[in-house]
């Protein structure tokens, strides 16, 4: 399966989806003009990956320093998908990385952790 790499832009994070390493990584800001359209390739990739191309454990790193509300919504959808995968027996380890001065990044991370009790969700202060 091909990896998917997207460079960081002013409004969008860098995206690194590596099937061989079992890595899903987002770093940067997220306030695209059309959030769902922007993330569609990533969501498609993730579905295809977990459909038999996945490693035993997949590491998911989110280091999002700024995001709009539709990005928040999309991340919920993303973790919904991960939770479904968990129910199907696919293991993931999620690292939500935030800067200690970034309250909103921490609070959002806490929301995810609370909402997805089944997932191995870690909040990591940078």
């Amino acid at each position, binding site marked *: 399966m091909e990896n998917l790499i997207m460079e960081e832009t002013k409004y969008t994070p860098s995206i690194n989806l590596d099937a061989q390493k079992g890595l899903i990584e987002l770093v940067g800001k997220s306030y695209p003009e059309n959030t769902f359209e922007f993330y569609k390739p990533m969501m498609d990739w993730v579905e295809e990956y977990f459909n038999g191309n996945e490693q035993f454990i997949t590491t998911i790193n989110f280091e999002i320093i700024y995001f709009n509300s539709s990005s*928040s919504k999309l991340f919920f959808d993303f973790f919904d998908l991960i939770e479904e995968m968990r129910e199907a027996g696919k293991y993931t380890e999620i690292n939500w990385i935030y800067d200690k001065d970034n309250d909103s990044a921490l609070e959002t991370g806490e929301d995810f952790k609370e909402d997805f009790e089944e997932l191995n969700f870690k909040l990591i202060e940078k």
Partner: protein
Amino acid sequence: METFENKLIDEIEELQTKFTKTTQKLIKDVKRQDNIMARSDKRQQQEYDELQRKFAEVETLQKEIEDTQKEIVFTMGAIGESRSKETGNHVKRVAKYSKILALHYGLPETEAELLKQASPMHDIGKVAIPDAILNKPGRLNEEERLIMDTHSQLGYDMLNSSDRPLLKMASIVAYEHHEKWNGKGYPQGLSGEDIHIYGRITALADVFDALGSSRVYKEAWDDERIFKMFKEERGEHFDPRLIDIFFENLEEFLKVRDSLKDVK
């Protein structure tokens, strides 16, 4: 007795389960949306507060810069004046007269205000004139007069290299405030509207104030004498339109003069 299984009940029960599942999901989604909205509102508020703070900061800094600039410019003018033993109030009065003339002439408020700040520098070139000439009691001889007159050019040269609008304006004022409407002024001998309006305005403001003040070489003139001279020099030394403005708004000028009297 064997109970008859109604298939319909099975179907309804299945629907019921699906309905419960779907509504639960919907409730979860709505809660999430509310949560996202609340978080977003909170953040937006923080961001807006932060923006306001930054704007206020920028405004304060900007004002600080402007005030500093005004002060420097004013001080430069005062330095020029102090060398010729005139009081700092001369500079202040000329500044205010210039703004009044500029506004009535029809220049926009911002430009008139800028001229008010620039006009105190009209004589800055005098810092380069020797004391013996600058403060000579009595009339200057021909040679001394020529040296004295170079202060316009000197002031222009000092200020002209700057790109700041205020200093650019000041350089025009310094250069052209001794030009005369009839072309008999210096250093370029320009006439009429070829003399920049800033120069024409400052010329009138400067002369009005100089005549009304006593200097090392002369007593102060009384108003009648000044007004008579102004009427004679309408269209000669001065822009006729500015002389008209002066007389039409005489009260304003006299008020400024009264509020900024020289302390003897």
